[in-house]
């Protein structure tokens, strides 16, 4: 019985945020769109059996029709199929990028904010240097060093995300660590590591969650940008940015080749941003209902 009760308590916390999220139509739309993308990515082989990369020059640059819902590209590959399979690539990149940013950025931000002093100074100066470059330019420079490809795209965009997390987490830690409950934790004899992980980290989870959702949108956009420039995922792998880039040449006689991948990118980024904004409002404890 107690376990059941406990479960209900946690559900209560969750339900409150969920109730607020449900009222936010834009966030719901974003969430639904994201679910659609997730579904598409997971069931790509079912939704589009066969290779999205196999060329068929007989049907190149065909307009959208009943046979080819979104038309075909210059090599006669179905754009619908490539967008479906491309969602796998884009979501994978978003997930990978955020993992790199979280795994390295959050601990560094926690250490920097909690300990302060020389460690903080060192971490912050490196962060300053990284933030001095626009994020995309930094990713671009890293690709130049690491080389092209899926893995290097993830690493380079991931690294460009790290300073954002460091700054965000450090700022939150600076205010949380001055709270009396942190001093109280110290007064009962908690070790630094325990204070950071158990008392401070949960209190900075909300901004991290929101940044993660927004960051995934940025990651997709950056990856598409790299792909557009031919520096991201390499053909013939279906990647929205690369599709957009190759469609550019046919913008006047076959505009659908560049348009549909563009719409896919736009909607994916929009879904993450709407959801991120909604989460920020729903999780903010100051606006508890």
């Amino acid at each position, binding site marked *: 019985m*107690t376990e059941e*009760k*406990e479960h209900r*308590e946690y559900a209560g*916390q969750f339900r409150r945020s969920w109730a607020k999220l449900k009222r936010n139509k834009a966030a719901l739309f974003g969430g639904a769109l994201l679910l659609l993308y997730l579904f598409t990515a997971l069931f790509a082989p079912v939704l589009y059996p066969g290779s999205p990369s196999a060329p068929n020059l007989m049907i190149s640059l065909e307009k959208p029709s009943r046979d080819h819902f979104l038309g075909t590209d210059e090599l006669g590959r179905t754009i619908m199929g490539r967008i479906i399979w491309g969602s796998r690539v884009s979501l994978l990149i978003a997930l990978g990028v955020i993992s790199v940013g979280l795994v390295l950025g959050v601990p560094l931000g926690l250490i920097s904010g909690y300990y302060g002093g020389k460690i903080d100074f060192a971490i912050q100066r490196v962060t300053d240097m990284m933030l001095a470059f626009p994020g995309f330019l930094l990713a671009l420079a890293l690709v130049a060093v690491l080389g092209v490809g899926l893995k290097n795209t993830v690493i380079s965009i991931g690294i460009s995300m790290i300073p954002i997390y460091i700054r965000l987490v450090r700022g939150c830690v600076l205010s949380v660590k001055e*709270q*009396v*409950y*942190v*001093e*109280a*934790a*110290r*007064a*009962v*004899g*908690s*070790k630094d590591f*325990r204070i950071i992980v*158990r*008392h401070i980290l*949960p*209190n900075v*989870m909300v901004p991290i969650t929101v940044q993660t959702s927004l960051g995934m949108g940025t990651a997709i956009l950056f990856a598409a940008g790299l792909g557009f420039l031919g520096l991201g995922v390499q053909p013939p792998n279906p990647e929205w940015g690369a599709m957009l880039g190759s469609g550019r040449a046919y913008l006047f006689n076959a505009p659908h080749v560049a348009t549909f991948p563009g719409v896919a990118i736009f909607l994916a980024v929009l879904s993450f941003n709407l959801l991120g904004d909604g989460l920020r409002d729903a999780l903010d*404890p100051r606006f*508890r209902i």
Partner: protein
Amino acid sequence: MKEQDKPLLTIEGLHTCFHTLDGIVNAVDGVDMVVYRGETLGLVGESGCGKSVTALSVLRLLACPPAEIQGAIHFQGVDLLGLDREGIRRIRGNAISMIFQEPMTSLNPVLTIGEQIAESVRLHQNLSGKEAWRWAETMLEMVQIPGPKQRAKDYPHKLSGGMRQRAMIAMALSCNPQLIFADEPTTALDVTIQAQILNLMQDLKQEFHTSIVLITHDLGVIAEMASRVIVMYAGQVVEEAPVRELFKNPRHPYTQGLLGSVPVIGKKAKMGRRLQEIPGVVPGPLETPGGCRFHPRCPKVADLCRREAPLETVLGEHRRVRCWLAA
């Protein structure tokens, strides 16, 4: 010597200063005090007189730098200032614990009450998670929180101020410490709740044989709780006395002023008697006056007070005063 007469905590010549950009702030300047087993010692003074800093210095909860702690603090013969980080961490919460002023902000909003109490137990005692949780429930029962099993699973925002302060007391008592610093434990509470909390602390003190250092500016609380009182002013001890003695026969003009500034109602209130006040304010930490630190506000000030700082005059056991008039 009886067990009760042995000092639990001795503080000798405690100097705590903060290095700031504006200069060195001497928050605590040469404080001596002794706390015995099972007693309640009252520490009184206006805001900024160094009461809290004294407590924080004992547990070494001040960040050094900017703070610098000098002097000697012995707890059961152990030199607290000589301990390494791990050593002092074992003392905190286990042998000496602290109750903070603000129950609203002293509990972590994202952890349940039970988790927070269980944590302090697990840090110092070799208990499993389940045992610690059960102990947390027992502690909540001990501090008379109704429905302790349910409340243990609640987050702090579901509890009222009084309930939270009870939870804080439960946390402070969870490892059965020998000494508790209670830093204005009732200041943030309603008057009716204050009385309940004070009674609770009194009862638990008897039950656990804990010594309490009660930091407050409320003389009513002192009269009810403390057996001995130390009055502080501008970082120094200006008077020490058993509680009855202090209320009956205050020797330092500052103590007299403090007692005079308590409103009196009922028969004792004389018609037309104005509420006395101590003129002026506590000197800022960087503008400590020369001579006696209280002289700019003292109604009985003499030339000597302006020129030279008075030394402590010992008038008897636990009876001392820092004033030229008593010397």
